[in-house]
């Protein structure tokens, strides 16, 4: 305690107080991710044995396999990794910032905002590459998350986490209605939009997706930096201020991070809900509420889960594949119900 400045005291309190790094969980997460990546490369309409996958990754082996793995599956695996990281981090951030255990960027309307931005862009400018789409999605996501944070700060949501989610659902519905109105004016938009909307990892070619890696990295780094401070904020604004945190600044940065992450993920893969809900929950169960552990692990577990969902979708459909957004809805919605039913007696009003 050499320095008495507020910043370092914050660092003292936030960064070094008794976090025992959960090594077993970390190891498991990494193994899970590795398995998910391999499965994502190997499984599909045509199953490819592991050794051939490895060989084709180094550019040798059967030409057909090279095409499938190289062109299609590597591309969607990269997309999955990117979106998984983005949505996982955004989910943890959102739940921490709104102090709401059932917040999810998808349900709260951030993705709906991004969708609206994209469709408005499609309607105005015609077809767009991912470069243009991402800015529109970011603009839409920014507007929507600003509204959501305004909701969560108001007195009415402070009393009940469920109410914030409902407000988000209503807000999504309004945005959805406006989006529908635009989509239905033009059959071409609908044709693009109906595939984009279900959330699919094959919507974009890999080169376009790689252009967005920077966005996700910025968002993820911001999220990691915010994690220790958000720990302190979980005690409430007053305590956080006493510990040297500036809640306004943290919220603003968090808002930026959520916007960048969700906007990018939505621009790439369409609106995927529930991933941001499920992953933080799972992790809190395993490693406890400390965000310094939850946040980094979410960056590993979320892409693993998204890839597994995508792989499952390929198998369920038997050729006609089920998009990953749909699979996630089937995983996430029952979990939400279980949570709501289970928490009833805990006085969640």
């Amino acid at each position, binding site marked *: 305690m050499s320095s008495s400045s507020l910043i370092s005291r914050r660092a003292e309190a936030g960064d070094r107080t008794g976090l025992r790094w959960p090594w077993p969980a970390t190891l498991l997460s990494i193994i899970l991710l590795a398995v998910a990546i391999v499965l994502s490369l190997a499984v599909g309409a045509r199953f490819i044995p592991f050794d051939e996958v490895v060989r084709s990754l180094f550019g040798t082996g059967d030409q057909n396999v090279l095409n499938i793995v190289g062109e299609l599956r590597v591309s969607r695996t990269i997309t999955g990794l990117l979106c998984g990281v983005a949505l996982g981090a955004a989910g943890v951030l959102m739940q921490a910032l709104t102090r709401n255990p*059932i917040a999810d960027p998808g*349900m709260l309307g951030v993705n709906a905002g991004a969708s609206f931005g994209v469709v408005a862009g499609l309607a105005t400018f015609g077809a767009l590459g991912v470069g243009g789409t991402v800015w529109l999605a970011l603009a839409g996501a920014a507007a929507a998350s600003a509204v959501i944070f305004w909701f969560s700060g*108001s*007195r*009415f*949501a402070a*009393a*009940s986490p*469920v*109410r914030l*989610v*409902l*407000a988000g*659902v*209503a*807000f999504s*519905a*309004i945005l*959805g*209605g*406006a989006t*529908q*109105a635009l*989509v*239905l*004016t033009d*059959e071409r938009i*609908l*044709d693009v939009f*109906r*595939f984009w*909307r*279900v959330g699919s990892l094959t919507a974009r070619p890999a080169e376009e997706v790689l252009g967005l890696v920077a966005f996700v990295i910025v968002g993820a780094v911001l999220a990691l930096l915010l994690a220790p401070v958000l720990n302190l904020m979980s005690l409430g604004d007053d305590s956080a201020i006493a510990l040297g945190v500036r809640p306004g600044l943290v919220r603003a940065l968090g808002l930026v991070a959520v916007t960048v992450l969700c906007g990018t993920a939505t621009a790439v893969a369409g609106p995927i*809900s*529930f991933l941001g809900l499920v992953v933080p929950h799972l992790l809190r169960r395993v490693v406890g509420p400390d965000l310094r552990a939850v946040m980094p692990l979410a960056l590993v577990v979320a892409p693993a889960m998204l890839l597994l969902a995508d792989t499952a979708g390929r198998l369920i459909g038997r050729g*006609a594949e*089920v*998009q990953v*957004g*749909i699979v996630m*809805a*089937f995983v*996430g*919605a*029952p979990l*939400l*119900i279980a949570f*709501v*039913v289970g928490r*009833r007696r805990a006085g*969640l*009003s």
Partner: protein
Amino acid sequence: MTALLPDDLVLTRRRWSVRASRRTLLCAVAMGLLLLALGVTALMVGEYVVTPEALVRTLVGDPPARLDGFFVLGRRLPRALVAIVVGICLAVAGAVFQTLTHNPLASPDVIGISSGASVGAVTVFLVWGGSIDQATLGAIVGAVVMAGVIMLLTARSGLHGVQLILTGVALSAIAMAVVDYVLTQVFVASATTAQTWLVGSLQGRGWSDLVPAAAALVLLVPVIASTAPAVRMMPLGDQLATALGVRVTRARWVLLICATLLVAVAVATAGPVSFVALVAPHIARLLCGRTSLIVAGLTGAVLLLASDLLALYAFPAPIPVGAVTITLGGGFFLWLLFREGARRG
């Protein structure tokens, strides 16, 4: 409530009597007049304008021009009637659900019953290539299944308040995921048709669409009305009401089934038009101070007809009526949430 309020009207004939509050009657009459005015507007305006005189002559069976007859009798009248009937179905169902659950937010569209109906109808329509009538059956099956699932979850955990709503929202999400998947599996033309239907649209609705909805209304509303005495006793609590000779459980089941069927028929006719079922009973309650099925039904009809007129003429190109109701109704839902929150503090 033995002593009648001074402003209650009592009509007595031999063995039965009817009591109605003046305010409710006034509201009903006002809503009826508003509905009539909107209906006349709907018949007259459009790209082909029908003059009042021509309208009257057309309606009595002597159209001055063939086009008058075509537009008024062939197009606009059935569409307006469908809007009115569907509006009444949705609003009555919404009022019943809100009363049964003691939950101002629990309308069938919010808790997922409309989504269930959508899944049923879309599956029959797109996957099995069924006709509209079969799609209606599909919608009924879907709605009933969804209501059953919600009841199961509710019965086991005794869900109340916002939990019920959130459970419905989650179930809705699953249902809509199924619908979205089906939509990606068909050609774009069918997808467009289905998509328009899924938002809720009255485009091209004719006399044949009117029949099932009107039949459901005529059959089910008397049944719902017959449970009114039981419903009035429910606030006393189940035990006291049962002791007073009211079959509470039976009344609840009858109401639930009737309301679910009304929703299913409405959804099969016009698609899952959102938020009318939520909003209409609230407006009716604000106006007349109590839950009146008649006023709620008329309000629903007014809302849907007015929204349809907006959807047709307020934008550069006609849009589905559901896009209007979801935007207006979503705002109303938010306002309700805020008000509820403010009350609880």
